[in-house]
Protein backbone atom coordinates (compact mmCIF):
# COMPACT_ATOMS: atom_id res chain seq x y z
CA UNK A 1 0.00 0.00 0.00
CA UNK A 2 1.22 3.50 -0.66
CA UNK A 3 0.23 7.14 -0.73
CA UNK A 4 1.24 9.60 -3.45
CA UNK A 5 2.01 13.12 -2.23
CA UNK A 6 2.39 15.76 -4.96
CA UNK A 7 5.36 18.08 -4.67
CA UNK A 8 4.55 21.78 -4.98
CA UNK A 9 6.83 23.01 -7.77
CA UNK A 10 7.08 26.47 -6.22
CA UNK A 11 8.29 25.37 -2.79
CA UNK A 12 9.56 21.82 -3.53
CA UNK A 13 7.51 20.64 -0.59
CA UNK A 14 5.24 17.61 -0.61
CA UNK A 15 1.63 17.82 0.48
CA UNK A 16 -1.40 15.59 0.84
CA UNK A 17 -5.10 16.23 0.66
CA UNK A 18 -7.11 14.26 3.16
CA UNK A 19 -10.28 14.27 5.19
CA UNK A 20 -10.47 15.24 8.83
CA UNK A 21 -13.05 13.74 11.16
CA UNK A 22 -13.62 14.70 14.78
CA UNK A 23 -16.50 15.25 17.17
CA UNK A 24 -16.84 18.92 16.19
CA UNK A 25 -17.45 18.06 12.53
CA UNK A 26 -20.68 16.54 11.27
CA UNK A 27 -19.11 15.41 7.99
CA UNK A 28 -15.57 14.60 6.84
CA UNK A 29 -13.84 17.83 5.80
CA UNK A 30 -11.07 18.25 3.23
CA UNK A 31 -7.73 19.58 4.45
CA UNK A 32 -4.46 20.18 2.65
CA UNK A 33 -1.47 19.12 4.74
CA UNK A 34 2.19 19.73 4.11
CA UNK A 35 4.30 16.66 4.80
CA UNK A 36 6.28 17.84 7.79
CA UNK A 37 8.77 15.42 9.28
CA UNK A 38 9.76 18.25 11.63
CA UNK A 39 6.38 18.16 13.35
CA UNK A 40 5.91 15.61 16.09
CA UNK A 41 2.16 16.08 16.01
CA UNK A 42 -0.21 16.84 13.14
CA UNK A 43 -1.21 20.47 13.44
CA UNK A 44 -4.01 22.55 11.96
CA UNK A 45 -3.19 26.17 11.31
CA UNK A 46 -5.35 29.25 11.33
CA UNK A 47 -6.93 29.23 7.87
CA UNK A 48 -8.10 25.63 8.26
CA UNK A 49 -9.29 26.14 11.83
CA UNK A 50 -11.43 29.09 10.73
CA UNK A 51 -12.55 27.39 7.52
CA UNK A 52 -13.65 24.27 9.42
CA UNK A 53 -15.29 26.44 12.09
CA UNK A 54 -13.48 24.58 14.87
CA UNK A 55 -13.85 25.86 18.40
CA UNK A 56 -10.77 25.81 20.59
CA UNK A 57 -11.53 27.87 23.70
CA UNK A 58 -12.62 24.81 25.73
CA UNK A 59 -9.76 22.62 24.61
CA UNK A 60 -6.68 21.82 26.67
CA UNK A 61 -3.60 23.87 25.89
CA UNK A 62 -0.18 22.32 25.75
CA UNK A 63 3.39 23.49 25.37
CA UNK A 64 5.59 22.84 22.40
CA UNK A 65 8.78 24.12 20.87
CA UNK A 66 9.00 25.37 17.31
CA UNK A 67 11.92 26.43 15.16
CA UNK A 68 11.09 30.05 15.98
CA UNK A 69 10.30 29.72 19.65
CA UNK A 70 7.74 28.26 22.04
CA UNK A 71 4.08 27.83 21.16
CA UNK A 72 0.99 26.83 23.10
CA UNK A 73 -1.29 24.93 20.78
CA UNK A 74 -4.69 23.55 21.75
CA UNK A 75 -5.27 19.81 21.67
CA UNK A 76 -8.14 18.55 19.54
CA UNK A 77 -8.97 15.06 20.79
CA UNK A 78 -9.92 11.88 18.96
CA UNK A 79 -9.23 12.73 15.36
CA UNK A 80 -9.26 10.51 12.29
CA UNK A 81 -7.56 11.50 9.08
CA UNK A 82 -8.51 9.73 5.86
CA UNK A 83 -5.82 9.52 3.21
CA UNK A 84 -6.20 8.32 -0.37
CA UNK A 85 -4.16 5.15 -0.52
CA UNK A 86 -3.31 2.82 -3.37
CA UNK A 87 -4.00 -0.61 -1.91
CA UNK A 88 -3.04 -3.08 -4.60
CA UNK A 89 -1.07 -3.55 -7.80
CA UNK A 90 -4.14 -2.72 -9.86
CA UNK A 91 -4.08 0.81 -8.44
CA UNK A 92 -7.28 0.45 -6.43
CA UNK A 93 -7.81 3.57 -4.32
CA UNK A 94 -9.25 3.55 -0.83
CA UNK A 95 -9.57 6.11 1.93
CA UNK A 96 -7.58 4.59 4.76
CA UNK A 97 -8.29 5.96 8.23
CA UNK A 98 -5.49 7.04 10.56
CA UNK A 99 -6.74 7.51 14.10
CA UNK A 100 -5.00 9.88 16.47
CA UNK A 101 -5.61 10.51 20.16
CA UNK A 102 -5.18 14.22 19.45
CA UNK A 103 -3.83 16.79 17.04
CA UNK A 104 -2.70 20.35 17.69
CA UNK A 105 -4.51 23.53 16.73
CA UNK A 106 -2.71 26.85 16.31
CA UNK A 107 -5.62 29.26 15.94
CA UNK A 108 -5.47 32.92 14.92
CA UNK A 109 -5.35 34.15 18.51
CA UNK A 110 -2.68 31.70 19.53
CA UNK A 111 -0.81 33.23 22.47
CA UNK A 112 2.54 32.30 20.95
CA UNK A 113 5.16 34.61 22.31
CA UNK A 114 7.30 34.73 19.22
CA UNK A 115 5.11 34.91 16.12
CA UNK A 116 1.33 34.72 16.41
CA UNK A 117 -0.26 32.50 13.79
CA UNK A 118 -1.41 34.65 10.93
CA UNK A 119 -3.56 33.94 7.94
CA UNK A 120 -0.58 34.17 5.62
CA UNK A 121 0.80 31.01 7.16
CA UNK A 122 -1.93 28.86 5.73
CA UNK A 123 -0.74 25.31 5.49
CA UNK A 124 -1.66 22.67 7.99
CA UNK A 125 0.98 20.10 8.83
CA UNK A 126 0.93 16.32 8.71
CA UNK A 127 3.29 15.24 11.47
CA UNK A 128 5.26 12.19 12.45
CA UNK A 129 2.31 10.82 14.42
CA UNK A 130 0.94 9.71 11.05
CA UNK A 131 4.05 9.81 8.88
CA UNK A 132 5.80 7.18 11.01
CA UNK A 133 3.38 4.61 9.60
CA UNK A 134 5.14 4.91 6.24
CA UNK A 135 8.45 3.15 6.49
CA UNK A 136 9.77 3.98 3.01
CA UNK A 137 9.75 7.39 1.38
CA UNK A 138 10.69 7.82 -2.27
CA UNK A 139 11.24 11.37 -3.56
CA UNK A 140 10.89 11.88 -7.29
CA UNK A 141 11.49 15.47 -8.37
CA UNK A 142 11.15 14.54 -12.02
CA UNK A 143 7.55 13.51 -11.53
CA UNK A 144 7.05 15.93 -8.61
CA UNK A 145 5.86 13.16 -6.32
CA UNK A 146 6.73 11.74 -2.94
CA UNK A 147 5.68 8.11 -2.58
CA UNK A 148 5.05 7.04 1.00
CA UNK A 149 5.01 3.27 1.49
Amino acid at each position, binding site marked *: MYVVAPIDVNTNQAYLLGYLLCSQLSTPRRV*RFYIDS*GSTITTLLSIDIVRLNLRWSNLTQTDCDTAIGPAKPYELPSVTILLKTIVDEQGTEQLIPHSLDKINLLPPDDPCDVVPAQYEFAFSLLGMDILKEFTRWEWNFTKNQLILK
Partner: protein
Amino acid sequence: MPVLVQKKRVDPKLELELLSKLDQLQQEYLWISDNEQKLKKNHLNKYIAVKNKKVVFDSDDFEALMKVLMLHDDVDSFAIKHITKKPACLLL
Protein backbone atom coordinates in the same frame (compact mmCIF):
# COMPACT_ATOMS: atom_id res chain seq x y z
CA MET B 1 4.47 -2.68 3.95
CA PRO B 2 3.48 -0.15 6.59
CA VAL B 3 1.43 -1.38 9.53
CA LEU B 4 -1.87 0.59 9.47
CA VAL B 5 -4.63 0.37 12.02
CA GLN B 6 -7.78 -0.26 10.01
CA LYS B 7 -10.53 -0.57 12.51
CA LYS B 8 -13.07 0.95 10.22
CA ARG B 9 -13.39 1.61 6.56
CA VAL B 10 -15.39 4.32 4.96
CA ASP B 11 -18.67 3.10 3.51
CA PRO B 12 -17.67 2.07 -0.06
CA LYS B 13 -20.64 3.94 -1.53
CA LEU B 14 -19.56 7.14 0.14
CA GLU B 15 -15.88 6.46 -0.49
CA LEU B 16 -16.13 6.89 -4.27
CA GLU B 17 -17.73 10.28 -3.85
CA LEU B 18 -15.17 11.38 -1.27
CA LEU B 19 -12.28 10.23 -3.48
CA SER B 20 -13.71 12.10 -6.44
CA LYS B 21 -14.00 15.30 -4.42
CA LEU B 22 -10.42 14.92 -3.22
CA ASP B 23 -9.21 14.52 -6.80
CA GLN B 24 -11.15 17.59 -7.87
CA LEU B 25 -9.59 19.69 -5.13
CA GLN B 26 -6.16 18.33 -6.04
CA GLN B 27 -6.64 19.61 -9.59
CA GLU B 28 -7.47 23.06 -8.28
CA TYR B 29 -4.24 23.21 -6.24
CA LEU B 30 -2.21 21.97 -9.20
CA TRP B 31 -3.77 24.70 -11.34
CA ILE B 32 -2.85 27.32 -8.73
CA SER B 33 0.71 26.05 -8.67
CA ASP B 34 0.99 26.05 -12.47
CA ASN B 35 -0.41 29.58 -12.73
CA GLU B 36 1.46 31.20 -9.85
CA GLN B 37 2.97 34.02 -11.91
CA LYS B 38 -0.29 34.95 -13.59
CA LEU B 39 -2.06 34.90 -10.24
CA LYS B 40 0.58 37.21 -8.76
CA LYS B 41 -0.03 39.62 -11.62
CA ASN B 42 -3.80 39.66 -11.27
CA HIS B 43 -4.48 38.96 -7.60
CA LEU B 44 -1.46 40.17 -5.68
CA ASN B 45 -1.90 40.27 -1.88
CA LYS B 46 -5.37 38.79 -2.16
CA TYR B 47 -6.84 35.60 -0.76
CA ILE B 48 -8.25 33.69 -3.70
CA ALA B 49 -10.78 30.88 -3.95
CA VAL B 50 -10.39 28.68 -6.99
CA LYS B 51 -12.93 26.29 -8.43
CA ASN B 52 -13.02 24.62 -11.85
CA LYS B 53 -9.58 26.12 -12.50
CA LYS B 54 -10.83 29.68 -12.23
CA VAL B 55 -10.50 32.28 -9.53
CA VAL B 56 -14.11 32.65 -8.49
CA PHE B 57 -13.63 34.98 -5.52
CA ASP B 58 -10.85 37.07 -4.14
CA SER B 59 -10.57 39.36 -1.17
CA ASP B 60 -8.02 41.37 0.80
CA ASP B 61 -9.44 39.81 3.94
CA PHE B 62 -9.56 36.06 4.59
CA GLU B 63 -12.57 36.20 6.89
CA ALA B 64 -14.52 38.20 4.32
CA LEU B 65 -13.67 35.55 1.71
CA MET B 66 -14.84 32.81 4.06
CA LYS B 67 -18.18 34.58 4.62
CA VAL B 68 -18.78 34.45 0.86
CA LEU B 69 -17.69 30.81 0.58
CA MET B 70 -19.88 29.74 3.50
CA LEU B 71 -22.92 30.68 1.40
CA HIS B 72 -22.06 27.84 -0.97
CA ASP B 73 -22.95 24.18 -0.56
CA ASP B 74 -19.52 22.65 -0.66
CA VAL B 75 -17.04 25.03 0.93
CA ASP B 76 -14.30 22.42 0.73
CA SER B 77 -14.50 22.34 -3.06
CA PHE B 78 -12.72 25.71 -3.22
CA ALA B 79 -8.93 25.77 -3.12
CA ILE B 80 -7.88 28.77 -1.06
CA LYS B 81 -4.52 30.50 -1.30
CA HIS B 82 -2.99 33.80 -0.30
CA ILE B 83 -1.14 35.29 -3.25
CA THR B 84 1.94 37.20 -2.15
CA LYS B 85 4.78 38.86 -3.97
CA LYS B 86 7.51 37.34 -1.84
CA PRO B 87 9.11 34.16 -3.17
CA ALA B 88 7.68 31.04 -1.60
CA CYS B 89 9.69 30.13 1.44
CA LEU B 90 8.31 27.87 4.12
CA LEU B 91 9.97 27.02 7.40
CA LEU B 92 8.03 24.13 8.89
